[in-house]
């Protein structure tokens, strides 16, 4: 499976592989978009600089995953990123949810607790995936995972620091954080699932099985939860707003797509 150009793919492997790649690419793309809406609105200027650097890295990761899809003949990276309908998108619904009430240009009242929890939980899940992908049977993906992983160390540390700090702070912080945790876990199953082709994806050695990855996420998070006096049971993991891996999405995604592809759609054939 190392050289997609030379060897024709077993169609079953190829559909499992592309299913996985769409999840990886769409997850990072939409979360980086949500991050870019935060620009200039973070709690302080230092955080604005750090958060926008993370969003930029994340957008870069999305571009690398879209590139792997382009290499497999799925279309060019810009049409993959900008030209697909919501129903074709495979990102987890959690990642498409708006940052909070208001518009990113005028009345934004974004929820920092939600930003911290969503990003922290997601980045840890992404880290677990990248660690597993380093041994992927598809070498080009293993190579990309290695590159992505180098930047994740810093992302994870960043969000973990915020998470612990806000969980341990007095005042309004704790209840706000707990509300955000409840909201995030209510759709976190949607992040952890490998979708309808999950079994095939694991069988072909593209990544380890969903359940193993999930247990590893819990294993990584439990000491942190304990340190801030939080108990999380996996029974609360759900997909309250749908399974994005099946193309189920919310109106939040439609609105996001029309914004992020507004200029692209002026003339998709033009060079920008």
């Amino acid at each position, binding site marked *: 499976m190392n050289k997609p150009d030379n060897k024709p793919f077993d169609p079953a492997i190829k559909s499992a592989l592309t299913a996985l790649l769409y999840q990886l690419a769409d997850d990072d793309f939409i979360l980086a*978009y949500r991050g*870019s*809406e935060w*620009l*200039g*609105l*973070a*709690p*302080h*200027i*230092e955080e*604005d*600089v750090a958060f*926008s*650097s993370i*969003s*930029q890295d994340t*957008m*870069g990761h*999305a*571009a690398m995953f*879209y590139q792997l899809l382009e290499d497999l003949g799925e279309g060019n*990276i*810009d049409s993959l*990123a*900008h030209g697909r309908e919501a129903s074709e998108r495979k990102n987890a619904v959690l990642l498409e949810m708006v940052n*909070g009430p*208001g518009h*990113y*240009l*005028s*009345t*934004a*009242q*974004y929820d*920092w607790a939600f930003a911290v929890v969503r990003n922290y939980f997601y980045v840890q899940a992404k880290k677990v995936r990248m660690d597993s992908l380093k041994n992927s049977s598809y070498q080009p993906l293993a190579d990309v995972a290695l590159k992505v992983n180098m930047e994740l160390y810093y992302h994870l540390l960043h969000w973990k620091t915020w998470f612990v*700090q*806000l969980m*341990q*702070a*007095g*005042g*309004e*912080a704790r209840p*706000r954080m707990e509300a955000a945790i409840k909201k995030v876990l209510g759709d976190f199953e949607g992040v952890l699932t490998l979708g309808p082709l999950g079994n095939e994806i694991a069988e072909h050695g593209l990544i380890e099985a969903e359940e193993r990855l999930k247990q590893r996420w819990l294993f990584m998070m439990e000491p942190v939860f304990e340190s801030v006096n939080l108990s999380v049971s996996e029974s609360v993991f759900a997909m309250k707003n749908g399974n994005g891996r099946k193309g189920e999405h919310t109106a939040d995604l439609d609105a996001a797509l029309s*914004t*992020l592809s*507004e*200029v*692209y759609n*002026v*003339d998709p054939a*033009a*060079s*920008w």
Partner: protein
Amino acid sequence: MSGVISYQEWTEEQKYEQFIKRIEAGEKIEADDWMPEDYRLTLIKLISMHGISEIMGALPEKEWVPKAPSLKRKLGIMAKVQDEMGHGQLLLRVAEDLMKPLGKTREDIMQDLFSGRLKFHNVFHMEAPTWGDAGLIGWLVDGAAIITQTNMLNASYGPYARALKRICAEEVFHAQHGEAIIMALAEGTDEQRAMVQDAVNRWWEALLMFFGPGDATTTGTSKQDTTIKYKIRTKTNEELRQDFFTKYIPRVLSLGLTVPDETMQFDQQQNLWVYKQPDWNKFKDIIKNNGPKSKERLGLRQTAYDTNEWVRDALNTAN
């Protein structure tokens, strides 16, 4: 030792003379050095305005960060706007050190911004309604900023000079990023070309205003004399504006674009560009936060500041 009095015993005049001698000799003044009060106040005003302009300057481009038309452009503009926030951060730290003896902090800078006491550059009060504007900001606004900031690279105040050195290096990339967007549009479809020309027309007057009035007779006050006296800058506003024309008019024309000023021409005898003055009353009004987007952008900042109050409280209790 007799005959030598220690620095603590110097009179204010002696300290002032020594200070002038140092800057005349090209020495750098550092944060903890003695400095005349009007030097300190001029620097605080200049640097906090510069810093806050970098931060407010992220807002017109912010609109185009999520909307950039390709992954490459999305990454490019994300990097650019991140740099601008970084410049803001760097400069506010320089300003904070200068404000310390006055008992003021970053909180005061933010409150002064919201109340209108602290102004930000006229260009960041303007609308940026198309992707063409996103390109133009990088190309010509950052291009203009390079010209004014290069003029202060040898500023007598060391911390500012060093910050500017780093900033200018990044600004060069911003101008290249902007130019690349503009070139793609200028070489593109009719619709794309129209987008650039509209942006040039829309921004021209604001770009001329960016360098500030020629002298105090235009707007009543001008800080340029003080900043030149104290070797914070070398060239006058008008000299900088002329440098901008010399650098950019040929480039604008070579892309097949025009500038919206029929009187614009280079006068060989005077060795000067002749041009139509912008409306300086409008300029005064814009920087008083009466520009087309002033209220909306300040409102966005203020709302974010208020919404995040609980986070700042949490950080304070954690410390």
